[in-house]
């Protein structure tokens, strides 16, 4: 008798969990559905992707994969990284919507854009 009750309770709990995950898919699978890092790869004297579109409050991370240092400098003075050697990175969180153009302070022909919308 006890075993049957236990089994029934267990089944009930499991089905509740199923229902919950059906009704609230985000919540139930919160860990798994976290978005990946928003990245710009710096390599071969280019920013990749050159134009990146992100929602507000996104943190963009630039990673230098080139064999020469680069810097990330916003054109309107909003952000400026230290010199990034190979495999070093820099992150900035964009809170407000807008277009943020930037370039490499060492190699100013390298230009990129973050569009926040």
């Amino acid at each position, binding site marked *: 008798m006890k075993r049957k009750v236990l089994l029934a309770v267990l089944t009930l709990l499991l089905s509740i969990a199923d229902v919950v995950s059906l009704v609230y898919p985000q919540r139930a699978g919160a860990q798994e559905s976290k978005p990946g890092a928003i990245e710009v790869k710096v390599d*071969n*004297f280019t920013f990749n992707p050159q134009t990146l579109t992100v929602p507000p409050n996104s943190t963009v991370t630039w990673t230098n994969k080139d*064999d*020469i240092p680069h810097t990330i400098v916003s054109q309107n003075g909003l952000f400026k990284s*230290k010199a990034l050697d190979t495999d070093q990175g820099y992150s900035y969180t964009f809170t407000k919507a807008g277009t943020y153009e930037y370039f490499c302070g060492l190699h*100013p*022909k390298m*230009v990129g854009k973050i569009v926040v919308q």
Partner: protein
Amino acid sequence: MRNTKLLEKVAAGFIEHDHNQDGVNRRGFLKCMAWAGTGALCLIEGGVLTSSALGSQMGSTKSHKTSGLSFVQISDSHMGFNKPANPDVISTLKAAVDKINALPEAPEFILHTGDITHLSKPEEFDNVDQILKATNKQIFFVPGEHDVLNDDGATFRERYARNGRGSGWYSFDQKGVHFVALVNVMNLKAGGLGSLGNEQLEWLEDDVKHLKSSTPIVVFAHIPLWSVYPQWGWGTDDSAQALSYLKKFGSVTVLNGHIHQTMQKIEGNVTFHTACSTAFPQPAPGKADGPGPMKVPAEQLRSVLGITDVNYVKGHHSLGIVDSTLV
């Protein structure tokens, strides 16, 4: 020595069209400079191109030993760089020092046209200073973009340009030659090239205003002051204005670095020259995706790095510029 006869024949063939009647023409000069890379010495004396194999000047009676000026340009030592293009920039800089110390005519001083360090770190500057001490010569520096990271060039200025103005420009005179050190790696604008800026341009105009037009001028700056390859940032946005202040002078030599290969161009009275790096080579314009370090087989590395020997003979029109590799 065995090549001297051949070189004399070749030198005789260099003067093709003597337009200015000074015994030198652009194409001939450029050809001669190509020979220089293999260890030949091209000298312009009295407007006449002569050449001989390097090493055969020992005991020579060439007039450049007397009332003249001899100095060396080195560039782009990138102390701190340690990637495959050259994992040991200390050794190659030391090889450059050995080369300088072995020159048949000792230079009076040395010009370093920037990118002294790779990441503007104090220990990187210290290393270069330590290694260059072995030349026993005074060294005049201009910064490259790698020397002014993180502190807007404060470290560079404190070490090498205490008496400089603005971001570290200055001038000095040696044996009647006027030297101008310019800084074109500060306040770079997105999508732009090198930049001198209005304050520096105004200073330059004033600095040379009262000099006699017969005064030989040597300008040195890191990024080329002529348009080598704008797509890779190899040029300076406002260099034309700087050069306009030097129009009156009969002899102007512009020495630059940044591109890690030798290149030469003559425009009227102005000779432009870029030096090799002592650290790593870079590709020729457009010959690669980007202007980054160019990897070559280890045994070839020293043949694409080098120094530049510059000789001025009093009363003569152009300076003799000789590039030689570290091999």
